[in-house]
């Protein structure tokens, strides 16, 4: 159970390789790797800013809550900061649980939160200059799926919505 913020590139394979071994009661490990897209030339570099001590504490608190909610056995979140080239990994999330539904939902939930609510600031440098990227409405809706404490899963929540 760890949050790592780092400016150096990381290898998602190495992280998953370190996360999986020596588990005797883990049936399921889900992982997500977010990569920087080139956007067909429109994105030359992505630049991510964090607030050390604040960003990692916010992620840690959020992940601890998700671990409790989904009964996770373990989790790992690694996030790049600084300039990131197309094709490089931005974020890696792994979750370990007894069964696959919990591992998948927790990983999905952590990513929705990271995409729209984690304290990062993201700038895209393209051929026509730089622009700050803020969460889309879609990102906000994805994150809001997990907000209602009365519903445990996105499916249950969706069932109630209509």
């Amino acid at each position: 159970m760890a949050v790592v913020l780092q400016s150096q590139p990381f290898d998602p394979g190495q992280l998953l390789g370190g996360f999986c071994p020596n588990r005797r009661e883990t049936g399921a490990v889900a992982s997500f790797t977010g990569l920087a897209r080139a956007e067909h030339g429109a994105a030359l570099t992505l630049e991510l800013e964090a607030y050390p001590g604040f960003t990692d504490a916010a992620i840690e608190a959020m992940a601890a809550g998700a671990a409790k909610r989904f009964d996770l056995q373990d989790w790992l979140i690694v996030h790049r900061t600084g300039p990131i080239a197309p094709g490089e990994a931005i974020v890696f999330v792994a979750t370990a649980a007894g069964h696959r539904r919990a591992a998948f939902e927790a990983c999905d939930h952590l990513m929705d939160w990271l995409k729209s609510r984690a304290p990062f600031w993201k700038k895209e440098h393209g051929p026509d200059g730089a622009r700050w990227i803020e969460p889309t409405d879609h990102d906000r809706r994805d994150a809001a799926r997990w907000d209602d404490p009365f519903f445990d899963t996105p499916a249950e929540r969706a069932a109630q919505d209509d």
Partner: protein
Amino acid sequence: MARVLLFGRLADVAGWRERTIEAASLSALRTALATADPGLGEALAGPSVQAAVDKALVRGDAALTPASEVAFLPPMSGG
């Protein structure tokens, strides 16, 4: 006195990321920043900009000491 940090587009607006500024409270700090740079003052006044004192989010006003660290945080966008 407080160590002031600007994140994201706020640092672009101001042209700086970190400064030490004389102020006894968060509201006094906001006034000092807006007086020195009205463009920054306007950016900081937006409803989506949050303030953190010593790495804890603060709504409303807060007293500052010389050791305080104040951060202004525009809308966040992770992953």
